[in-house]
């Protein structure tokens, strides 16, 4: 009992070890070995069956042959027995003895005298003729020889007997000899088939495994914080194949469009195509692994999108927090600074109008100028911290830009810089806050002036793209280094020695309030380009 239990436990542990080992090997190997084992079993079974069947049928054939020959012999020898022609009998016996498996042939007359025998020594001997010899019988002796007794009858008269010994061993030996070639053939064929199977199962496992492997790689890169799509080179998109321009279709630009119900209906309606007959379906519809990959891709895209949104939201939140903290600070600081500024300004104004003197005037104007600078700084803090709501009015954007250019034109020319304008005159009047847009453009132009030197060019152009108005302000100045490009719109970020660091932050806010976009392209040493995109609100 105890032993049995130990044995059972041992067996269980061996089985579980084997199973866990199988579990660990890769799917490709599993498929490969499963295929191989299946094929070997199949080949072995088929070969054995064929060989066995062939042997059996050959044996039967031989036995049938011998029986027929003996039947014929018993009939043919009637005359020779009657007319006692041992030579003719011997000739016939010799002829039959050439057949495989026949041990001996004996022919005796009705008295039992042997008148024909495969072994010549037996001729003239007598055998005992009894009742039993008158009947057809057979028996197999210990040595595996089947003795067959056939009475020879001339009509109803018994005239002799024919006795034969058929050696089963010799028959088997003959059959084995005869099927030796077949065995060789089967072996060679099996060998080739085995090679072919190895190749096929290898290829099959590879085809099955390859996409899974790609998926696995992508999953590993997720672990390394990299979100990559698992490309499927055979996939085609319906928008490319059907030249479909229906951008509002839920399947537009998506894989596995046939799974989207609305898209199915759309296709039927606009292209008169059923999904089942569609080229896109035929080419792109893969197996379950393909589906898995596409689902994975969709998941990655959604995840990427969500992460981007999250990132954006976090940034916006940070910005907002920074802004609201700044708003409060700016309000307090503005008040606390503007009050003394007020007193300073009033005092200088009083002294200016009541006292004379060149030096006094000069220094008073310095105080005045610096007071004004401080005031501007504080005002820009305040205006950024407490944005003014947009006042939409239908206006001509080119005219607004021209107004701004008038403000800086003289300065640009005096500095020896070139100002180029290129207006697209066909832009219709549309709704925007002209005052705030002017402010934004002025900020960009002031930046361009600060970033350029004598001989540089500042260009302003307008254009239209789809339903957007583009305002491009570019310069050939010093440019912005790559590492600072994503910081320039942050409040208080500045590279200038004078300035609040709020100019571009204000620009971005004003354009964002318009539901527009500001794009910046810059290369250090080559210049900077700001593109304002405004929606054409008619």
């Amino acid at each position, binding site marked *: 009992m105890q032993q049995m239990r130990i044995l059972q436990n041992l067996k269980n542990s061996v089985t579980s070890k084997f199973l866990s080992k199988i579990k660990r090997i890769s799917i490709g190997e599993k498929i490969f070995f499963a295929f191989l084992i299946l094929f070997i079993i199949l080949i072995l079974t088929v070969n054995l069956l064929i060989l066995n069947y062939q042997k059996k049928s050959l044996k039967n054939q031989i036995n049938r042959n011998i029986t027929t020959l003996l039947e014929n012999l018993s009939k043919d020898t009637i005359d020779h027995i009657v007319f006692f022609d041992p030579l003719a009998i011997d000739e016939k016996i010799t002829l039959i003895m050439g057949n495989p498996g026949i041990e001996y042939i004996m022919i005796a007359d009705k008295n039992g005298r042997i008148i024909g025998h495969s072994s010549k020594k037996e001729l003239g001997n007598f055998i005992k003729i009894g009742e039993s010899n008158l009947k057809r019988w057979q028996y197999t002796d210990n040595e595996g020889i089947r003795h067959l007794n056939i009475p020879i009858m001339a009509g109803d008269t018994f005239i002799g007997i024919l006795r034969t010994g058929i050696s089963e061993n010799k028959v088997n030996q003959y059959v084995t000899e005869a099927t030796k070639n077949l065995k060789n053939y089967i072996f060679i064929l099996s060998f080739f088939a085995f090679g072919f199977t190895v190749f096929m199962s290898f290829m099959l496992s590879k085809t099955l495994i390859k996409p899974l492997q790609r998926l696995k790689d992508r999953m590993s890169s997720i672990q390394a914080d990299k979100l990559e799509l698992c490309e499927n080179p055979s996939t085609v998109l319906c928008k490319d194949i059907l030249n479909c321009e229906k951008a509002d279709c839920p399947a537009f630009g998506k894989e596995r469009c046939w799974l989207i119900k609305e898209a199915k209906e759309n296709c039927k309606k606009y292209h008169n195509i059923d999904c089942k007959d569609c080229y896109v379906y035929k080419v792109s519809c893969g197996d379950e692994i393909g589906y898995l990959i596409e689902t994975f891709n969709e998941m990655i895209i959604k995840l990427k999108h969500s992460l981007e949104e999250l990132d954006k939201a976090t940034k916006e939140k940070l910005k907002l927090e920074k802004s609201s903290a700044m708003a409060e600070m700016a309000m307090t600081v503005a008040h606390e600074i503007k*009050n003394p500024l*007020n007193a300073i300004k*009033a005092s200088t104004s009083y002294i200016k109008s009541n006292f004379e003197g060149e030096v006094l005037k000069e220094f008073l104007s310095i105080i005045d100028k610096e007071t004004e600078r401080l005031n501007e700084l504080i005002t820009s803090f305040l205006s950024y911290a407490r944005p003014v709501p947009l006042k939409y009015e239908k206006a001509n954007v080119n005219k607004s830009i021209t107004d701004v250019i008038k403000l800086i034109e003289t300065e640009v020319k005096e500095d020896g810089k070139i100002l180029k304008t290129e207006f697209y005159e066909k832009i219709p009047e549309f709704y925007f806050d002209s005052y705030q847009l002017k402010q934004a453009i002025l900020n960009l132009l002031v930046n361009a002036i600060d970033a350029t030197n004598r001989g540089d060019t500042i260009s302003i152009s307008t254009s239209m793209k789809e339903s957007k108005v583009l305002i491009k302000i570019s310069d050939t100045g010093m440019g912005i280094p790559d590492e600072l490009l994503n910081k320039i719109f942050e409040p208080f970020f500045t590279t200038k020695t004078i300035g609040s660091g709020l100019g571009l932050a204000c620009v971005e806010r004003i354009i964002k309030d318009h539901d527009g976009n500001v794009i910046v392209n810059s290369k250090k040493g080559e210049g900077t380009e700001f593109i304002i995109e405004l929606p054409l609100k008619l």
Partner: protein
Amino acid sequence: MAKILYIDDEISALKAISAILKKAGFNILTATTAEEGISLLKETSIDCLLLDYRLPQMDGIELLKWLKYSGINIPVVMLTAYGTIEKAVEAMKLGAYHYLIKPVDTELLINVLKEAIEKSSMLFKEKEKVYSPFPEIIGKSKAMQEVFI
């Protein structure tokens, strides 16, 4: 000579601006709190009030409300460091004549004050006309006055 009451808690601004306004020919009274201003308003007749928005305890807006409540009809020019539209609208709604942002431009201030005094006196004269459209015909009895005013 127009009499102006200037209320501001910033002593230096109070001094400087008063000096400028005096030079410009105004008669200036000053106060550093709204309460002080109210007692001056009660004591003397003032042509125009120059009022700082932020004051200790009672602030400029509350003083404007008090003026409205008390029925004292004088032009008020507001002065503030908060340059926001909401504040301006709030002040205007409460009857302020103008709204100036600190640091104030003295020339602009003088012009605004002159304008305020001028307009208010004109308005006063027009009101006088409206109040007694037919001074000769209609009696000065209380009942008659109520009908026409």
